[in-house]
């Protein structure tokens, strides 16, 4: 078979059994792999929404037809029901683990059940070994990866959890290849609930390519396009993702102090430009990636990876902190303990506003850089107030009677773009299938960065169509599976050419978009079954009622009511946000 390995293994950790999950050619064509095929398989295995920590819940590690082929194809997608949001969730991570898993002979690995004692999995030569992990339980993610490599192979790529996942922190990440994170949605906590500490994958098998000459020519074209493009060929390499700090701040939508302000006066001190001239040691890159947007950094006393844009913000402006060293070391701590930096920072900011408002006694003060790393550690280990931070902002704010102070959608914390500054981004947050996330439909690309075309960020007309389109394209990229940053340098036609040369299947642009629509709709169906309706497709009241008084997004509020009906209409969903029968029929769902 070309493109796919043709093998997905399901391991039941409680029943000590394994079996292969058969996937026919038509299903592969309709869902590709990664997020799409993962969501399809998950919906079949767990059609009725269950407790994400239940033994019966399935956790899927998925690769796609492009995994292990062109540049940036080392990624993998983790799919399950999020313990943070209760929605379907897929969490994506870079590095090389995806390529290793596929090279070990699998398109995907499905884990169900709960092991009686800690285990890790060793995937190689198409088989999955379940091994005892008692000796490594409790270790941080860096020591875990080293230990598992010593137990398996120095060449193995390891994905694992740290103490946060073991302790089922609702936003625990899965970390692989040192510091790459499947960060959002708490997939690491599900590993913890399964007593699954790590997965080691040892690659070796190459993905079979249908049209070798066509593939070579396409890969060469992609090389040139990425090199020539100023974002992928220069900006991301030199300045990393934190170049956005000044960009978003200049647009007056850099969320400051739990989204009460849109301009951070100390933005310069935490910018990508500043990181490049201070902490940066060198770039780092995922599997076969010439871009290398990662940052290997050093503070006076420590070294590690990051911070990326979202983290600079979450531990910086969001908390009123401008101490780059404290931000960076909190980032290192999250990497080691296995925590999503966005939800971690956002929840601390929520606690700070709760304290300021008098609802929370625990002293949490804006700008308190000295206590930052301590809060992160306490969260991972559930110590003291950390046990409450471990719940995420929605549960925390509700507990103290001020639910409106949690800056979240469907329980997932909104990242570093204030929706008052970009109406399309606001709609995208509200309708994202995994809650307040920028990656479902990154409207910042057209509304701020001007890619591939520039759109007026304050206009609502036409946004429903574009949000749906970008959500669909993103679902395809996440299912192929490639890095989203390639989208700065390539369009959907390049993607269909990649898929054609690798799989031999001629996906036209239209078919690819239909695949994206199918995936997005399938996610919606699951969320509907989990109880999410129109009333959940919204944002915290702050964004509708409070205006900034300064900056270039001042006097703006989100006008979701001008867009939501139109969005449902474009999607073929009814007024309550449920896909209509006709829509399901058209998509073959």
């Amino acid at each position, binding site marked *: 078979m070309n493109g796919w390995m043709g093998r997905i293994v399901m391991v039941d950790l409680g029943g000590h059994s394994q079996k292969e999950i058969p996937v026919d050619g038509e299903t592969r064509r309709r869902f590709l792999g990664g997020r799409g095929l993962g969501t399809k398989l998950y919906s079949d295995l767990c059609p009725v929404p269950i407790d994400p920590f239940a033994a019966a819940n399935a956790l899927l590690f998925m690769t796609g037809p492009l995994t292990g082929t062109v540049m940036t194809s080392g990624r993998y997608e983790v799919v399950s029901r999020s313990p943070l949001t209760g929605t379907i969730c897929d969490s994506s991570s870079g590095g090389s683990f995806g390529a290793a898993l596929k090279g070990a002979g699998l398109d995907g690995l499905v884990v169900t059940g709960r092991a009686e004692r800690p285990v890790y999995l060793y995937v190689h030569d198409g088989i999955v070994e379940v091994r005892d992990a008692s000796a490594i339980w409790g270790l941080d993610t860096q020591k875990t990866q080293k230990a598992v490599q010593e137990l398996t192979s120095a060449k193995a790529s390891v994905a694992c959890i740290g103490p946060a996942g073991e302790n089922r922190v609702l936003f625990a990440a899965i970390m692989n290849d040192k510091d790459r994170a499947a960060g959002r949605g708490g997939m690491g906590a599900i590993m913890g609930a399964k007593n699954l500490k790590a997965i080691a994958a040892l690659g070796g098998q190459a993905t079979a390519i249908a049209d070798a000459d066509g593939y070579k020519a396409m890969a060469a074209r992609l090389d040139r396009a990425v090199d020539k*493009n*100023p*974002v*992928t060929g*220069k*900006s*991301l390499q*030199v*300045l*990393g*993702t*934190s*170049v*956005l700090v*000044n*960009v978003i701040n*200049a*647009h*007056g939508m850099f969320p400051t102090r739990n989204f009460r302000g849109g301009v951070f006066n100390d933005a*310069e001190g935490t910018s*990508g*430009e500043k990181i*490049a001239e201070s902490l940066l040691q060198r770039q780092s890159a995922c599997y076969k990636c010439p871009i290398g*947007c990662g940052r290997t950094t050093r503070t006076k006393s420590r070294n590690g990876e990051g911070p*990326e*844009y*979202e983290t600079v913000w979450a531990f910086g402006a969001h908390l009123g902190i401008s101490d780059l060293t404290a931000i960076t070391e909190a980032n290192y701590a999250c990497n080691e303990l296995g925590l999503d930096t966005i939800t971690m920072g956002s929840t601390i900011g929520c606690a700070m506003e709760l304290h300021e408002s008098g609802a929370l006694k625990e002293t949490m003060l804006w700008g308190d850089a000295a206590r930052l790393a301590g809060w992160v550690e306490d969260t991972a280990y559930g110590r003291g107030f950390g046990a409450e931070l471990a719940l995420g902002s929605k549960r925390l704010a509700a507990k103290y009677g001020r639910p409106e102070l949690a800056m979240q959608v469907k329980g997932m914390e909104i990242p570093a773009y204030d929706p008052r500054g970009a109406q399309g981004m606001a709609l995208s947050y509200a309708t994202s299938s995994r809650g307040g996330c*920028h*990656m479902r439909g*990154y409207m*910042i*690309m057209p509304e*701020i*960065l*001007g*890619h*591939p075309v*520039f759109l*007026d960020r304050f206009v609502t007309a036409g946004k429903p169509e574009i949000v749906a389109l970008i959500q669909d394209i993103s679902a395809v990229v996440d299912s192929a599976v490639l890095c*989203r*940053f390639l989208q*700065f340098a390539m369009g959907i036609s390049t993607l269909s050419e990649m898929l054609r040369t690798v799989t031999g299947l001629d996906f036209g642009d239209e078919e690819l978009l239909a695949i994206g629509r199918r995936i997005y709709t399938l996610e919606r169906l699951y969320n509907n079954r989990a109880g999410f309706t129109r009333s959940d497709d919204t944002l915290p009241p702050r964004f509708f009622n409070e205006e900034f008084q300064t*900056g*270039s997004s001042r006097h703006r509020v989100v006008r979701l009511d001008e867009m939501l009906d139109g969005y449902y209409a474009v999607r073929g969903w009814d007024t309550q946000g449920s896909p209509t029968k006709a829509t399901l029929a058209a998509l073959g769902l």
Partner: protein
Amino acid sequence: MAGAIEVKFYSLLRRRLGKASLALEADGLTVLELLLLAEKRAGQSFLDELLDRERGLLTGTMILVNGENVRLKQGLETRVGAGDTVDLFSPAGGG
């Protein structure tokens, strides 16, 4: 400076020029004229980071006049005057 236009350099521009801003004593210019003047004053070329060979904005270039993207105004023909702040970003991306 009262009678000046403040031009701020970000991202790759700043690294290339080695400075974060310039105050230009000028008034009543188009953005394009301002850019040409800034290049002269900076003593070093940088317009290739922002414009194509036909002097059109590159995809992704962000030029903000008092926080508003000139693409929403008259593009490079947008007029700027004393007291205005102009932010220059070469194409950037992240997430």
